[in-house]
C-alpha cells in the first residue's frame, strides 16, 4: 500500500473571547509543516467604512477599540495624522504624557506576552508570576487615566487628563520594581530548562526574508534589523527621551523572549525619565470639529510593531477615508515563513511568538489523508501534546516551578554568604 506523504491540517478558526482569531491550513509531511495558507477576517468589523460616517473626534475613540491591548497607540497614530491636517501644535507636556502612557502600554503588553509564552511552553508558574507583575503597571495606568485598557486619554492636539499630583515617586519606584523583575525573568528564561528546550532554535527566519516580507517591530528586530519608528521617525517626545533600541541576531523564539524583556527595561527607563522631566504648561489645544481638506499619513511603534494610519479629508465633519494597518497583518507573512519546517508540537509557541494573542487554538481539527481520519483537539490538548512531545518522561509535578525557586534561593544564599 502506498502512503501519501502530505496531510492537510485545518487549524482554527477561532474562539471569540480572545482577539485576532486566525485560521491556518497547514500542509504536513509527517510531523513537519511544509506549507501554511492563512485565512483571517473572522473579526473584521468594517471600522474603515464606519469611520466614513462618523465625526472626526468620535473616530478617535472608535479606533482606540481596534485592539484590546495596545489601544492607546491607535488613537495616538490616528490623532497624529489628523493633527498634521489641522496645523495646530501639540503642547510639550501633552507629548510627554503621551510618551508615558504609550510606554506603559508597551510594558503591559510585553508582560502579557511573556506570560503567554510561559503558558504555551508548559511553564505556568512564569505565566502567573508575570501576570501578577502586570497588575503593577495596569494600576499605574488606571491611576493616571481612570481606565485599565481603553484609556481614552488622547484628544486632537493634546491629552484629556493631566498627570495626577504626587505620582512621580510612585511611578519611578514601580518602574524600578518592574526593571528588577524583568532582569529576574531574563535569568529564568536563560537558565530554566523548560523555556530553553521549547524556544531555542525554533522559529528561525533569515534577515533577508524578514526584510523582504516587510516585517515590523520585534519581528524585525530579532533578526537584527534596526527597525523602530521611535528611532527612525520620532513622534511624541521620543526625540528627547533616552531611547535604547534592542536588537538581537540569534533569530529564534528564545531571542524574541530576551528582546522583549530587554525592551521592557528600556521602556521603564523612558517612563522614569519622562516622569522626572515632565515639562509644565497646557495639556491641550482646542481644535474645531471641521478638519481642513488634505491627506496625511502617520506611523507609530505599537508594542507589536509599526502601525500605520492614512487619513484623507475633504474639509467636512467626517473623514473621506481612513486606512489603518495593524502590525500583525504586516507580520503574518513572516510568521508563515517561521512556521515552515517546524513540527506540529511547535505551532503554539511559534504562533504566540509573533504576539497575535490568538484564540484560534481552542478548536482545531486534523485531517489525515492516509486514513481519511478526522479528529479535533482543544487548545489545551494541543498544548499538552506540545509539552509531552518535548518532555515525555515528565511527571505531573511542576518541575519548572521548583527549579526556578531553587535557583533563586541558592543565588540569594550565595549572595548573603
Amino acid at each position, binding site marked *: 500500500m502506498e502512503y501519501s506523504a502530505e496531510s492537510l491540517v485545518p487549524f482554527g478558526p477561532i474562539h471569540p473571547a480572545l482577539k485576532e482569531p486566525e485560521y491556518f491550513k497547514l500542509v504536513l509531511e509527517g510531523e513537519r509543516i511544509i506549507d501554511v495558507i*492563512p485565512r483571517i*477576517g473572522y473579526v473584521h468589523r468594517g471600522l474603515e467604512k464606519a469611520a466614513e460616517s462618523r465625526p472626526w473626534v468620535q473616530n478617535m475613540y472608535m479606533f482606540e477599540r481596534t485592539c484590546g491591548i495596545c489601544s492607546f497607540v491607535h488613537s495616538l497614530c490616528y490623532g497624529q495624522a489628523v493633527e498634521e491636517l489641522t496645523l495646530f501644535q501639540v503642547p510639550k507636556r501633552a507629548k510627554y504624557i503621551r510618551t508615558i502612557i504609550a510606554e506603559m502600554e508597551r510594558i503591559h503588553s510585553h508582560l502579557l506576552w511573556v506570560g503567554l509564552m510561559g503558558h504555551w511552553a508548559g511553564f505556568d508558574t512564569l505565566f502567573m508570576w508575570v501576570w501578577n507583575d502586570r497588575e503593577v503597571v495596569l494600576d499605574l495606568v488606571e491611576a493616571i487615566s481612570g481606565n485599565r485598557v481603553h484609556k481614552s486619554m488622547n484628544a486632537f492636539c493634546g491629552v484629556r487628563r493631566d498627570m495626577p499630583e504626587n505620582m512621580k515617586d510612585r511611578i519611578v519606584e514601580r518602574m524600578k520594581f518592574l526593571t528588577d523583575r524583568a532582569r529576574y525573568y531574563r535569568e529564568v528564561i536563560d537558565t530554566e530548562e523548560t523555556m530553553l528546550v521549547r524556544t531555542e532554535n525554533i522559529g528561525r527566519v533569515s534577515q533577508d526574508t524578514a526584510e523582504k516580507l*516587510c516585517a515590523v517591530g520585534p519581528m524585525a528586530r530579532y533578526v537584527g534589523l534596526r527597525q523602530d519608528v521611535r528611532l*527612525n521617525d520620532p513622534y511624541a517626545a521620543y526625540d528627547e527621551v533616552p531611547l535604547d533600541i534592542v536588537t538581537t541576531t540569534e533569530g529564534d523564539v528564545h531571542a524574541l523572549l530576551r528582546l522583549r524583556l530587554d525592551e521592557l527595561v528600556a521602556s521603564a527607563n523612558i517612563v522614569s525619565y519622562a516622569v522626572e522631566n515632565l515639562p509644565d504648561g497646557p495639556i491641550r489645544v482646542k481644535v474645531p470639529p471641521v478638519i481642513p481638506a488634505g491627506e496625511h499619513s502617520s506611523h507609530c511603534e505599537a508594542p507589536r510593531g509599526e502601525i500605520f494610519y492614512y487619513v484623507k479629508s475633504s474639509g467636512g465633519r467626517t473623514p473621506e477615508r481612513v*486606512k489603518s494597518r495593524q502590525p500583525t497583518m504586516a507580520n503574518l*507573512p513572516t510568521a508563515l515563513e517561521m512556521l515552515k519546517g517546524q513540527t506540529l508540537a511547535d505551532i503554539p509557541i511559534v504562533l504566540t511568538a509573533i504576539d497575535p494573542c490568538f484564540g484560534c487554538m481552542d478548536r482545531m481539527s486534523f485531517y489525515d489523508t492516509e486514513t481519511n481520519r478526522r479528529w479535533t483537539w482543544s487548545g489545551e490538548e494541543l498544548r499538552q501534546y506540545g509539552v509531552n512531545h518535548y518532555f515525555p518522561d515528565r511527571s505531573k509535578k511542576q518541575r519548572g516551578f521548583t527549579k526556578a525557586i531553587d535557583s533563586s534561593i541558592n543565588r540569594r544564599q550565595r549572595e548573603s554568604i
Partner: protein
Amino acid sequence: MSETLTQLGKYAEEVGTKVIQLRKNESTVEVTQDRLKVFVAHLVNDLHVRHLMTITGLDVGQNLVIIYNFSLERDTIHVKTSVPKTNPQAVSIVDIVPGAILYEMELHDMFGIELIGNPWKDQKLLLPDEWPADLPPPLLKTTKPDQIRRRLGLEAAKP
C-alpha cells in the same frame, strides 16, 4: 530633503512624472499603471526603499486610486496609481515586494480590484466566504451599509 528623495526626484523626471512634497518627510508621486512595476523595482532595488508599510485604496469617483505607502527611515513615500472603475485591473508587485501579498488581497476584497500576478488573488482574506457575488465591494463610496445589511438579511440600522 534626503539623498534618496533627491535621487527619486531625478528618476521621476526621467520617466515623465514628479515627486510632490506634501510635508516635511512626506512625499507623493503619481505613476501610470504600465510604468508602476518598473518604478517600484527602481525604488526597491536601486534606492533600497524596501519597507512597504501598506497599500491604501481610495474611491475618487470615476477611478480607484491605489497608494503604495513606502517608508525609509524618516521619509514616507506614497506611490500613487489609478485604475478605472469600469475595468478594475491592476498589476501585482508581489514579485518585487513579497510582503505586499496580503495587502493586495485586502485591496481585492475591499475595492474589487483584480491584482494580476498575485498567486492568492482568488482567495478571500477579510470578507466572509459567503459574501454574495452581487454585492459591490464594501469600501466603494456607492456601497451603503444599509444595502449590505438588507442583502445579508440583517436588520436595518437604527435611525
